[in-house]
């Protein structure tokens, strides 16, 4: 079973994508039908899971692919030789 901490390595690039398109979080929320609170959770990397429906709606609204929206940051422990 994946460690819970691994979820924290997923970084959401919603901020950069919104800025590039000149959109606000509120406008995106209206476009995709997801609450601003939930999008804020996603934007601030506090989400632990994302529904496919949310992912598709956000990608459609921003004209991007899931890989543009979500990136996995390198494992700090693995990068340092897997200490511990």
């Amino acid at each position, binding site marked *: 079973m994946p460690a819970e901490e691994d*979820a924290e390595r997923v970084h959401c690039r919603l901020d950069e994508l919104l800025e590039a398109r000149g959109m606000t979080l509120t406008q995106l929320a209206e476009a995709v039908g997801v609450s601003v*609170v939930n*999008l804020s959770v996603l934007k601030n990397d506090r989400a632990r*899971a994302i529904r496919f429906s949310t992912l598709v709606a956000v990608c459609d609204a921003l004209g991007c692919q899931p890989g543009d929206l979500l990136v996995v940051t390198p494992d700090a422990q693995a990068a340092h030789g897997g200490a511990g």
Partner: protein
Amino acid sequence: MDATAPLADARPRGGDLVLVHVVRAVALLALVAHLAAAALALVVPLAQGWIGVPAMVEARMPSGQGIEVAPAQAWVETTVTVLDAPGWLAALVVGAAVVGVAGGLVVLAGVAWLAHRMLRGAPFAASARGALAAIAIGVMLVSLIAPALRGLASTSAMPLLGSGYGAVSSLDLAAMLLLLVILALMVAFRIGERMQHDVGGLV
């Protein structure tokens, strides 16, 4: 993120919200009333030097006048006042009352706590399962242990009361069924807790 943290969307709405508020208010009011009534029922007799022993007495049913009543005699439960009761009898009677009161308080407090968790939008938590376990114990105290102690007190008091009295004995089958329901609810809450953990942080 705390997986058992309140979820804004999980809070009860509309009729459910009213229902949960009513349940919590009634549970809290009943808790206070239960405590006050129990204190009066315990303190007044003890202060006046008497105790009320549960016993069965023969009740004569009205018969004749064209109405056939069978049986013509029946046993009804009553409370017999015993002055200067021996210490062991007083201990049994008071013990039964205290156990019953404690059980009632635990049940009401548990219900109020569950309602509180629901209002916060997080009914599925380890503390809620703990509240359910406490409610189960409370139901056992009220419906099984306290009646058993009352029955023991009643049986023990028979030599003092003499003929014409019978011992009280009661076994509450409905309470045993209620215990089964509570145990099933505890399992359901454990599943709910796991599901709440799964959706914690889901967007």
